[in-house]
């Protein structure tokens, strides 16, 4: 059957296709015509446009939150965080560690202020890095005047001989920046610059890496052991 020149029939079939009353063989035949007839597709689209608003004749009802969670999970819309974005995965642990860090800060400030009076370098900023459980593991002191950054171990776990600790500044966006690899005794004197103490630095972190440091230029390759943040004195 040729329906190309029968305008009335084209309207009737398109409308009943959209409404749903065109069924079975007639429906399949119509879909075949749709396939090679752009004008018929347009007529059908117009009918969709006319009749589909019947969907809006119902009172809106909010679906349960579970529905979105299922959609999100089914489509894997939340990308797994990159290895160094540990605080996304373990946000609770992370915030707890900040809590511990700030409690310990009072003690530290006293130490730093005392050392300030003794030593000529002027410490402008400090950071205490901890694993969130056992208090401060590493102490960072910055001297903005001299542009130096000192790293000292307070109570870090021993590091195997084929491993190194590496210090990172994690910016608010973008990849973590390596500040340097610590010596075996856990000490390091590094240059202090915007990479380490710029306004965009949101976190300092120490990771356990193969000896010599992470092979991944974009961030840590091993686990994050300690985290902390700068405090300006």
């Amino acid at each position, binding site marked *: 059957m040729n329906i190309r020149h029968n305008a009335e029939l084209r*309207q*009737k079939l398109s*409308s*009943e296709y959209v*409404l*749903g*009353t065109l*069924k079975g063989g007639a429906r399949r035949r119509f879909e075949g015509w749709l396939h090679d007839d752009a004008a018929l597709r*347009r007529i059908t*689209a117009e009918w*969709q*446009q*006319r*009749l*589909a*608003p*019947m*969907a*809006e*004749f*119902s*009172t*809106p*009802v*909010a*679906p*349960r939150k*579970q*529905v*979105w969670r*299922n*959609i999100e999970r*089914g*489509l894997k*819309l*939340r990308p797994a965080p990159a290895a160094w974005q540990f605080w996304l995965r373990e946000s609770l642990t992370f915030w707890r560690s900040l809590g511990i860090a700030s409690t310990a800060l009072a003690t530290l400030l006293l130490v730093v202020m005392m050392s300030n009076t003794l030593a000529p370098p002027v410490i402008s900023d400090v950071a205490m890095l901890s694993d969130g459980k056992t208090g401060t593991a590493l102490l960072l002191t910055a001297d903005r005047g001299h542009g130096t950054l000192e790293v000292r171990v307070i109570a870090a776990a021993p590091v195997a001989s084929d491993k190194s600790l590496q210090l990172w500044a994690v910016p608010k966006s973008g990849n973590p920046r390596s500040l340097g690899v610590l010596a075996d005794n856990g000490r390091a004197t590094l240059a202090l610059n915007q990479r380490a103490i710029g306004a965009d630095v949101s976190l300092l972190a120490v990771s356990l890496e193969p000896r010599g440091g992470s092979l991944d230029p974009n961030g840590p390759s091993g686990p994050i052991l300690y985290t902390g943040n700068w405090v300006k004195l």
Partner: protein
Amino acid sequence: MSIAPNPQQLTTWLIAAGKRDASAFRSLYDATSSKLFGFALRILHKQELAEEALQEGYVAIWNNAVNYQAHLAAPMTWMATIVRNKAFDVLRRSDDTVEIDADHFDSEVMHALQDPQATPIESLQMSGDAKALAYCMTALEGMHRQVVALAYYHDMSHSEVAQQMSLPIGTVKTWIRRSLERLRACMMKREQT
């Protein structure tokens, strides 16, 4: 009470979802899911079945958003068509028989359809397209409107509608054909003014 979402905004989100923008997709869901869930409930009546249809519908919306053509369909039209098809899939899969009630539109819309003076269609929370259709449906006879609604919401054939309404099949065919012709004429006239 939410305001009918702006179609242009929906189009922007839908196109962004086609480019794998998950947050645009979330915004699209937030703006449209209540309407489409209400629609799925209308077809399926049972909460779990309607949730299943909605879930599958949005998965299909995400997967097909890249094929969405704004010049062929308004975003709500396109999404409602997908959800309707999923609802019918769910219906065919489930063992439940869905109750078919006489009142095919929610009371608010029904009142507006029956007595546009008492409940102005303009006051309903619907898109402009839906208001145009509601307005034109008021011009149909009640029984004709019911026949169209049975077919649309319950995926019924002419003979199923005839059985449901205890009418001869020829009558149903004629009513549906005439109703659709009238709707088209009415809506084209409204578009021109």
